[in-house]
């Protein structure tokens, strides 16, 4: 029986020139990273592009990765920052604040899938991006407070505070939609 190589081992092999090692990391994390980004930006094409950019940045900056930390936290940090920067850019282009909170589903909404996912996604999009990030990392990626703090780049106390506020806001939004009672 052979065990799967650890992330840090794969990083070392990749830095040694083994391209396949990076491919293993990519296949291991493309799903979680893509989903985290998708929940941040909603649009599938944008999520795919941002995920691709995040992995390429990770590849290019691999030598700067500190193996004392978790690889996926480092990777998520790159991806979440990409998503947040994208959201900020998008927000600058929006004609009206809070447009995403509109009750009318857009054509893109119709592609998201089940009603529940659609409502949750729509509600997520109306939250501030820093609240959205901690909710996504906690509830869709299963990150701990410590991991979230490392990914988002704030203290654990701040993570808890944001998570608390984010849950309250999301709860109210979903209650308003009749998803929660």
């Amino acid at each position, binding site marked *: 029986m052979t065990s799967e190589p650890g992330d840090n081992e794969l990083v070392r092999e990749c830095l040694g020139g083994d*391209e396949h090692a990076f491919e293993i990391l*990519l296949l291991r994390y*493309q799903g979680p990273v893509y989903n985290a980004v998708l929940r941040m930006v909603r649009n599938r094409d944008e999520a795919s592009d941002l*995920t*691709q950019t995040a992995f*390429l940045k990770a590849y290019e900056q691999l030598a700067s990765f500190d193996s004392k930390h978790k690889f996926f936290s480092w990777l998520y940090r790159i991806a979440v920052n990409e998503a947040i920067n994208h959201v900020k850019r998008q927000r600058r282009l929006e004609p009206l604040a809070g447009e995403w909170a509109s009750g009318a589903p857009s054509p893109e909404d119709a592609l998201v899938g*089940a009603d*529940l996912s659609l409502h949750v996604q729509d509600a997520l999009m109306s939250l501030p991006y820093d609240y959205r990030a901690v909710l996504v990392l906690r*509830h869709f990626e299963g990150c701990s407070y410590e991991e979230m703090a490392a990914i988002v780049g704030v203290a654990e106390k701040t993570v808890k505070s944001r998570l608390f506020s984010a*849950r309250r806001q999301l709860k109210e939004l979903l209650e308003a939609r009749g998803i929660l009672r």
Partner: protein
Amino acid sequence: MSIHPEISDLIQAELDGVATDAERIRLRDAIAGNAEVRDEYRRLRGLCDVLAQVEPEAPPARLAPAVMHAVRARRGTTHGGLVASVRAFWPGRHLALRYAYAVAAGVVLGVLGLHLAAGGSLFGPAVPERDASATIAPSHSAPRLDLAPAGVHGFATVRPSATGTTIGVDLGSAEPVELVLRYDPAKGGGRVDVLVLHDGEATPAGSLQLSGKQ
């Protein structure tokens, strides 16, 4: 009446699965004795349950191949052996250092393969070499290639060294210059083609003949 922050923290800890046994007991007591706490906990628990029902989506099938394609393209430009190492040498250096190299005459590649393929006898007696700086003075007897046709003020030279063959580059410009050297032992008994890169486009500057027959 609002919920005490300490109780809110307990609810959060319980929802996130990090509450200790003692905290769970305190929260259970608070829930039992306070309808508002009970309602808050029920609603937040409901939120967590709803979020847990959201299914992850499979990433697009094209994602991983696209990333690997881009990775391979980057490897081709950053880890691609002789060609890439020459390209990587110039742009990354500090300008002053690059200038010093350029004025004095620059790059020592020590291509052992050239030596093995072409043989030292093609170049006459080996030039004594203590360190890299000893090889950067241009040799008048060495084949010399004017890089002007490629828009660069300078010359490339090839001559023997103690470790094989030295390719020198004398540049009269302080501007960054990217060069590609391509060695093909099958061409003319051993030939080094010199190309200058401008905005990713390679412009041939000419060739250095290892046999000295330029």
